[in-house]
């Protein structure tokens, strides 16, 4: 039993950690080669990332785009999820599944669709098109987490607050908001991290004018591999881990992912 458990955990860890270990190893090479294990240890590629504008500018650009897109997605998702939940609880359950929508369509289709739309609107290539495309693409994530939060809330506590004299806005302020806050945070972080790593839509919509970090990595692939790419990946991964760690601290991550909290 214990042996099986350990074997299984090793497998999972290996599966999730192997690419990371390799990438981290590669990023520490002293030479401009993708050796693994690294030949000679050095942090020069990290230093290069933080010192050269051709690397850190795309990174800052990606961060701003992700932040804005996630904020817009959340501002749309919150009132929508709450309204639907208040008036039709069955419909609200569907919102949760909508969280899968970004993964249901092939990314190429979504990207081509967005591209064609912006061409029609004569905004092709404008920086804000990436933000709006990402916000629209990722809006289902906060929609899903917030709906999940509302669903797991005891609907009777809203009625209890009503019988105690609270009108609709007081109910939202004093009962609903404190409850769904961690779910909102989770939705924001999901959208943020996915936007940060998104390549295809950003490339198609404004790839020639707005160079985000994933686009920069791909563009520089044409001139050969460099360990800076690996060091960038490591930095971005650490950032995502930090953010998810914060969610894990403030909310119950398995519950946010839809696990039944009543089990075991």
């Amino acid at each position, binding site marked *: 039993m214990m042996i099986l458990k350990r074997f299984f955990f090793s497998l999972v860890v290996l599966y999730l950690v192997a690419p990371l270990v390799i990438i981290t190893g590669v990023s520490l090479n002293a030479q401009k080669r993708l050796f693994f294990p690294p030949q000679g240890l050095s942090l020069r590629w990290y230093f290069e990332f933080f010192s050269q504008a051709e690397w850190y500018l795309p990174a800052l650009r990606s961060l701003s785009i992700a932040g804005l897109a996630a904020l817009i997605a959340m501002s749309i998702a919150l009132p929508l999820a709450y309204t639907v939940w208040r008036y039709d609880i069955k419909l609200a359950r569907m919102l949760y599944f909508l969280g899968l929508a970004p993964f249901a369509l092939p990314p190429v289709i979504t990207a081509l669709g967005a591209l064609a739309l912006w061409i029609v609107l004569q905004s092709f290539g404008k920086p804000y098109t990436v933000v709006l495309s990402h916000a629209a693409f990722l809006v289902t994530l906060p929609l899903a987490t917030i709906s999940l939060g509302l669903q797991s809330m005891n609907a009777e506590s809203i*009625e209890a607050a*009503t019988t*105690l*004299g609270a009108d609709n806005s*007081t109910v939202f302020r004093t009962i609903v908001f404190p409850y769904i806050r961690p779910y909102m945070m989770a939705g924001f972080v999901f959208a943020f991290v996915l936007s940060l790593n998104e390549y295809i839509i950003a490339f198609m919509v404004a790839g020639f004018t707005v160079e985000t970090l994933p686009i920069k990595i791909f563009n520089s692939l044409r001139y050969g591999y460099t360990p800076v790419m690996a060091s960038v990946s490591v930095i971005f991964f650490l950032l995502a881990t930090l953010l998810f760690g914060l969610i894990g601290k403030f909310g119950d991550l398995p519950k946010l992912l839809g696990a039944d909290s009543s089990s075991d």
Partner: protein
Amino acid sequence: MPNLIIQAISKRFGQTVALEDVSLTLPEAKLICFLGPSGCGKTTLLRLIAGLEQASSGKIFLGETELSAIAAHKRNIGMVFQSFALFPHLNVANNIAYGLKIRGVDKLTRLKRAEELLELVQLSGLGKRHISQLSGGQRQRIAMARALALEPDLFLLDEPLSALDAKLREAMQVELKLLQQRLGITTIVVTHDQQEAMTMADVIVVMGENRVQQIGAPLEIYHKPKNRFVADFIGSNNFIPALVKDTQSVSALGSIFEIALPKSLKVGAQVALSIRPEKLQLYSSEPPKSSKLAGTIKFIRDLGSTVETFVEVAGHELSVKGIQHLATGDKVWLSFDPADAVILEV
């Protein structure tokens, strides 16, 4: 505090009828139980009174005030929910004082009132506890305290004890009854448990099939059920198919029984003679009585405190309760006092 008057209330959810033309006048300062099987509409009626549902037609009055014209959050009703519905992000005292806080009452007064109510429900000193630290019975009491904090005109409880285990439930029934008597506030308890209703209620409203079946004092409903639904739902009962012979007697299972009949019944009508298991006497030899039936014992259920004997009489199985010393297969006689039998239309 005035009477609660329910006037011709109907409620539909889409195509489903939940309540059909319910009219009731409920006395003030009493403990009233809405009793019925699940799906009978009893919870819907309670929620209509609280304003958590809107009636499809009909009105509700509290004395002269038309309650059904007032928004739920302005009705001044205290309600205890089946899940208790405590606010998980507030501690015990803040849960109790929630209603006071949103009315802008200052913190000191709020805490004082919370402490008073904790005393009322015998949980003094628990104000700082987190909700997750409470047992089921404690949550139940906190939910009551919160509902009573604003001194409501009506105190409504939706299956308040169903989440508790059997022994605690029985103790809480007595406690809730005594609390209601002390406060003198009109209280409505929804329950599907007839023992709970019999234990607590001054008045029971028996509901079934989305209508009110009977309203009355517990023992009145037990001993004088108005129809077969009530006779079957409250306690156990034997139903014997019978035929009206004349205005004074019926024939059933080959015997004639002299029983006072409702005047509405015609001679020759099919009726059911209902008699409680504890009202049947069992004899091992033929008794010198006029109303008697001969049968055979099919099964004995001896629970120690009571013995239930199943007797087959002319192909019909009757249940008899009471201590006796007989065995399966014995030939026996049954008799009963005609005054204990109730004739019901079928």
